[in-house]
C-alpha cells in the first residue's frame, strides 16, 4: 500500500497497464520527456520508449483521430488532452467516429480508446483551462464518461477505462491532482464502470455529486451531521451510462436529493438525474429535488472562480432548505 495523490495514481495505473498489455500506448502533447504538464505520464517514456509514449504535434483533433485509427486496428491508445479548453477539437472525432465505430460496422471494428484530460476549476489556471464539459460528451450515444473523485478511485477506474472495449472520456479533476493522498494498492485491480459509489451512508437526504465536488460534499455532510442531519453521499463516477438504480435506491430511502455539480446548470447532468428521479421515484420524495451547480456563465478568470464553484455554504444551505421545507 502506497500513499499517492490523484495524479500519481493516474501515473501508476498507466504504468501498470502498459506493462501488462503491449497494445496500450500513450499519445499527447508534452507527455514524453516532460511527463505531461501535470506529470501524469512522468517517467513513462523512459520506461516504455518513444514508440509507446508519443509526444505528438500540437493538434488535438489529430490526436483523437489517429487514436481512432489505432484503436480500430487493435491498439489501446490513451490520448492526453492537455487542458479542457483544448478538448473541443476532439469532439468531431469522438462524436463522429470513436463513439460510432462499433455500431456502424455491426461490431466488425471497435474503438477501445481512452481520452484523458484534466478538467474543472479551482487551480487559478488561465482562461480556457477550467471548464467542465462532461455533459457535452455524456450526451453522445456510444461514449462512456468517467470522472474519479479520489486517488484510489482514479487508479481503479482508469484501469477499467483502459480495459473497456469501447471509447471512454476520462476527465480528471485538476483541483484534486495534488489536494490529498490516499492509500492506493498498485495491484492492477480495476474498479467497475457504470456504477455509482456510496461514499457515506445517511438517512435524511442524498447528495449526488462527482469529481472535485465529492470532497466538498463530504465536508458539507460533516457540517450537517453536527447539525443533526444525516446525509448519504453518492459519487456518480461514471457519468454516462448513469447508474440510476443506486441513486434511486438512496433517494427512496432518504426521500430527499440534492445534486451538486461544477458544470453549468442548464442541460447539465444534474438535470438528467433530476428528471429520472421525477419519473421513477417522485412519490418517495418528501421535498423537490434541488441542484447546486455552477452558474450558466462563462467560467470566470481565477479571481471569481471561488464564487463560481458550488461552495460548502451553498451545499449545506440546499440540504438545510430541503429539510426545513424552505
Amino acid at each position, binding site marked *: 500500500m502506497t500513499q499517492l495523490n490523484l495524479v500519481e495514481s493516474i501515473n501508476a495505473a498507466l504504468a501498470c497497464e502498459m506493462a501488462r498489455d503491449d497494445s496500450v500506448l500513450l499519445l499527447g502533447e508534452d507527455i514524453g520527456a516532460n511527463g505531461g504538464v501535470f506529470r501524469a505520464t512522468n517517467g513513462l517514456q523512459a520506461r516504455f520508449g518513444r514508440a509507446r509514449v508519443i509526444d505528438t504535434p500540437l493538434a488535438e483533433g489529430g490526436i483523437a483521430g489517429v487514436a481512432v*485509427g489505432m484503436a480500430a486496428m487493435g491498439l489501446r491508445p490513451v490520448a492526453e488532452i492537455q487542458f479542457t479548453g483544448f478538448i473541443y477539437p476532439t469532439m468531431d472525432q469522438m462524436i463522429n467516429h470513436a463513439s460510432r465505430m462499433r455500431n456502424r*460496422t455491426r461490431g466488425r471494428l471497435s474503438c477501445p480508446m481512452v481520452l484523458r484530460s484534466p478538467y474543472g476549476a479551482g487551480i487559478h489556471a488561465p482562461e480556457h483551462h477550467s471548464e467542465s464539459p462532461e455533459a457535452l460528451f455524456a450526451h453522445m450515444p456510444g461514449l462512456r464518461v468517467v470522472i474519479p473523485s479520489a486517488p484510489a478511485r482514479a487508479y481503479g477506474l482508469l484501469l477499467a477505462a483502459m480495459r473497456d472495449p469501447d471509447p471512454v472520456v476520462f476527465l480528471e479533476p485538476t483541483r484534486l491532482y495534488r489536494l490529498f493522498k490516499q492509500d492506493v494498492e498498485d495491484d492492477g485491480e480495476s474498479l467497475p464502470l457504470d456504477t455509482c459509489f456510496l461514499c457515506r451512508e445517511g438517512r435524511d437526504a442524498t447528495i449526488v455529486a462527482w469529481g472535485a465536488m465529492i470532497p466538498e460534499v463530504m465536508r458539507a455532510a460533516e457540517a450537517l451531521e453536527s447539525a443533526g442531519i444525516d446525509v448519504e453521499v453518492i459519487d456518480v463516477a461514471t457519468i454516462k451510462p448513469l447508474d440510476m438504480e443506486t441513486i434511486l435506491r438512496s433517494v427512496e430511502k432518504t426521500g430527499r436529493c440534492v445534486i451538486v455539480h461544477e458544470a453549468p446548470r442548464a442541460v447539465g447532468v444534474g438535470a438528467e438525474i433530476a428528471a429520472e428521479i421525477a419519473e421513477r421515484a417522485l412519490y418517495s420524495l418528501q421535498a423537490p429535488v434541488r441542484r447546486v451547480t455552477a452558474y450558466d456563465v462563462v467560467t470566470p478568470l481565477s479571481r471569481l472562480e471561488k464564487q463560481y464553484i458550488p461552495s460548502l455554504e451553498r451545499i449545506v444551505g440546499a440540504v438545510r432548505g430541503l429539510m426545513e421545507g424552505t
Partner: protein
Amino acid sequence: MGLHTLIDGRIELIRFLAPDGAPCEAAPLPVNDETLLHLYQAMTRTRMFDGKAIALQRTGQLGTFASALGQEAVGVGAAAAMEARDVLVPSYRDHGAQFLRGMTMTECLLYWGGDERGSDFERARGDFPNCVPVATQVPHAVGAAYAFALRKEDRVAVTFIGDGGTANGAFYEALNMAGVWSAPVVIIINNNGWAISTPRALESAAATLAQKGVAAGVACQQVDGNDVVAVYEAARRAIAKARSGEGPTLIEALTYRLGDHTTADDATRYRDPEIVQREWTREPVARLRAYLLGRGLWSKEQESGLLKQCAEEVESAVARYLATAPQSTDAMFDYLYEDAPQSLLAQRDIARRFAPK
C-alpha cells in the same frame, strides 16, 4: 546570410495514356496485359454499378448516393496496387476501390439504402467504413499505419480524400503526423474539380494540391487521375515505399466529376455544359478501352460480353439488396457498446413494444 533551397518548385505528374488512349511514350507501359484487362473490367463494373444505383435512387429504392462517374480510375488504380492485408480508409465516393477490396455490391447498396450491415464487410474485414464527415478519415489512416509500424506488420494504410477536403484542418493535422512518424500511409487526393459546387480555384490558392505535402515533409506528386495505368503505377510505387519503411506519400489524382456531387445535387446549376462535354473526351474508361482496342487486346465481342456479365452481377446484387429483410429495432441498441448498459436495455424494450409487427 544564406539561402536554402528547400524545394525545387516542381511537382511530378505521371501519365502514360493520353486522353485518346495513345501511349504518351514509346516505352512499354509499366503493367502487363493481364493487369490492364483487370483494371478495365474493374472500372467497367464500377460504372455499371453507378448507373444502376442512380436509377434505384431515382425510383425511390435507394437513399442519397454519391456517384463515382468519371473518376473510376482513381479508386480502381489505387486499390489494384494494394495487397489484401493492407487497409483501405475510404471517403464516401470510393466504391470503385472498395469493390476491388472485396466489398460486395449488395453491401454498398445496403449502406446507401440505410442499413448498417452494409459496413459490416463480409470480406475486407479490416477496411474502414465510409467516412461522410470530410477529411476526418485521414487521421484514422495515419493511426492505422502507426499501429502497423509499431507491431512491425507488413501492412500499409491507403486513404482517399477529395480536393475540398484538403482545406480541412484534419487533413493538415494528419499529414503532419504522417510525416513526423514516417507512417506507412498513402494519402490520395481525388481531385475531381469540385467541392459540391465550389470549384477547385476557390478552394485553394496553391498551384497544386499535391504540394501541401511539402510543408509536412511528405513526398508528393500528381498523377493523371483519368489514366488508370498512371494511378496504379503511382500507388504501387508509394505503397512499396511505405512498405519498405520509407514513409508516407501524398498523391494528387487529377480527374473530373462527370456526375452530380450526389443524387441530391444538380450540377447544372453551377457548371458550364461545354466544359463537361470536353471532360467526357478525357474520361478513364473510354481511354483505356481505346488503348486496348488499338493494341488488339480487346474486341467488340469481349466488350459486349463484359457489359452483359457486369449487368448480371449488378442485377443479382440489387435483387439480394431488395430481398434483405430489415433489421429489428434491437439492431439500434445491440452494437452501440460491446455490453449494452442496463439503461439502454430498458430503452431497447420500449422500442420493441412500439416496433411494427
